[in-house]
């Protein structure tokens, strides 16, 4: 569904993303992980058209979309959320989700009805009339997910929707993401909460200093020496080989 080949993004003298390639198959949940500053959000922004790329190709549903404006990519069905939430502060929850729904249903009645359905889907059915500005962090993340979902995406790019949430809120959001996938939406997510990554994703890419250093099934990836080194530093992999068990836990919580 999504193919990224040799994507490179340079900011001044810094290669934020260096020759990164990845692939997301239809109907899957794929995760992109990596230490802070690895370039995950930049890679997301490049895929969704927010930054022009210096090299590489992004294709979606078999068509080259490199360099297309953001709104055109979104209309083709690939829609992102933001790591730092970007609320429509003066709009209510219902109005916010309706903005997304209008992209799919030009008619007001249908758009508002669809927005209400989506709100219920993400557990915001009781908050429809609340102003977006009054929501908690968890509420804002959820609202951002909801308005994105309301556009009827084929591929959702979720940028740290669980950051800043408490454990019970994380469990809820994991459940919501599962339901979204079950409804036929493919998901690519950036996440630091390893508990969620491990339980949700079928395939993981690991980004470090702008490069994809590993990819594979979740269990394989967290035991990959290169990945452990990227998170815990040089020598950590050998130490782990000597004392199997404990450091894996540590890596899993990094």
């Amino acid at each position, binding site marked *: 569904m999504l193919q990224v080949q040799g994507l490179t993004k340079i900011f001044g003298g810094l290669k934020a993303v260096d020759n990164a390639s990845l692939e997301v198959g239809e109907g899957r949940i794929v995760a992109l992980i990596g230490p802070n500053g690895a370039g995950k959000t930049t890679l997301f922004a490049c895929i*969704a058209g*927010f930054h022009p790329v210096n090299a590489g190709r992004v294709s979606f549903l078999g068509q080259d979309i490199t360099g297309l*404006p*953001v*709104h055109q990519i*979104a*209309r083709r069905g690939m*829609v*992102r*959320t*933001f790591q730092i939430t*970007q*609320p*429509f*502060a*003066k*709009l*209510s929850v219902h*109005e916010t989700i*309706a*903005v*997304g729904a*209008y*992209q799919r249903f*030009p008619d*007001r009645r249908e*758009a508002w009805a669809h927005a209400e359905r989506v709100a219920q889907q993400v557990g915001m059915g009781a908050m429809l*009339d609340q*102003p977006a500005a009054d929501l908690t962090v968890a509420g804002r993340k959820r609202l951002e997910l909801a*308005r*994105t979902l309301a*556009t009827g995406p084929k591929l959702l790019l979720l940028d740290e929707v669980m950051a800043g949430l408490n454990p019970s809120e994380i469990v809820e959001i994991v459940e919501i993401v599962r339901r979204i996938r079950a409804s036929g939406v493919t998901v690519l997510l950036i996440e630091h909460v390893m508990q969620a990554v491990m339980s949700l994703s079928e395939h993981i890419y690991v980004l470090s200093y702008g490069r994809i250093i590993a990819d594979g099934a979740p269990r394989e990836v967290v035991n990959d020496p290169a990945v452990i080194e990227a998170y815990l530093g040089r020598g950590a992999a050998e130490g782990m080989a000597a004392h199997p068990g404990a450091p894996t836990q540590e890596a899993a919580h990094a």
Partner: protein
Amino acid sequence: MSAPTARQAWLLHGSLLAVALVFPFVFSSSFAVNFGVMALFYAFIGQSWNIAGGFAGQLSFGHVVFFGAGAYASTILQMRFGFSPWLGLPASALAGALVGWVIAFLSFRAGLKGSYFALITLAFAEVLRIVANSVEITGGGLGMLIPAKRSAANFQFPERIGFYFLILALTVASIAVAVWLKHSRFGAQLAAIRENEDAARALGIDVYTEKVKVMILSGAMCGVGGCFFAQYFLYIDPIIVFGVDKSVEMLLVSMIGGAGTVYGPLIGAVLLAGISDATRALTDVQGLSLVLYGTLLVVIIAFLPNGLIDLFQRWGRRRRHPAEKGGA
């Protein structure tokens, strides 16, 4: 924020319209009717600012550029080419729309936002003022005097009440546009752009095109205001129709009444016209009304940042939910 129901909204529209319709018959003095005309005139051009500045968040400091374009387009057509002044109405809408499109094209292509956009509109207004001051077809700094030939066919109603009903019709139309924006996809997209352009773009909204569209709409409305002004006062010159005063008045009536709301400009306009008439009747001090108005603006920004309409909305909420004190 519990929104009023559709029935309550229609009740409000209907009763306001009824009041406006009987006003000139109840208060038929020429002073009162003139007050009505000016209040509606400010409500109309304030609404045109509000469409761009309030609904779409594209704050303009030089909205007068559309106003002047409309005023000159209709007056030049009439005076230099002998067209009926009634043709001035569509012509001025076209002129305002065209100027709106050009300014939007140039500034949004260049990515100008917020205060930069506000300043560029001011610059455009100044440029057109200087052009109007120096070319022959506009009459230069002397302006253009439209000879008085009082007849409705000549767009010069023998009685003020004719102007009153014309500007009432225009204001009703502008409020209808605002209501439509509140309830349409276009309006929802504009609200999203106003609140957060990046997020709007991420959802698939073509931010550039929507912003150009709203400037064309707002420019066309403001241009019609210019045409009305020229026909009501029968005189225009560059300072009157391209001066910064009118820009400020348009933005003030919206912000004092409540920017981004349907009735904000009307509330602000009634107040502006009222203060202006009251100070003129009671004192000889020139420009006192704007001093008072400026003071009022400071007080409102400090205590009612959403405009005077917030008072009415709070009151409405309290009536609907007597238990909750003060509202959400």
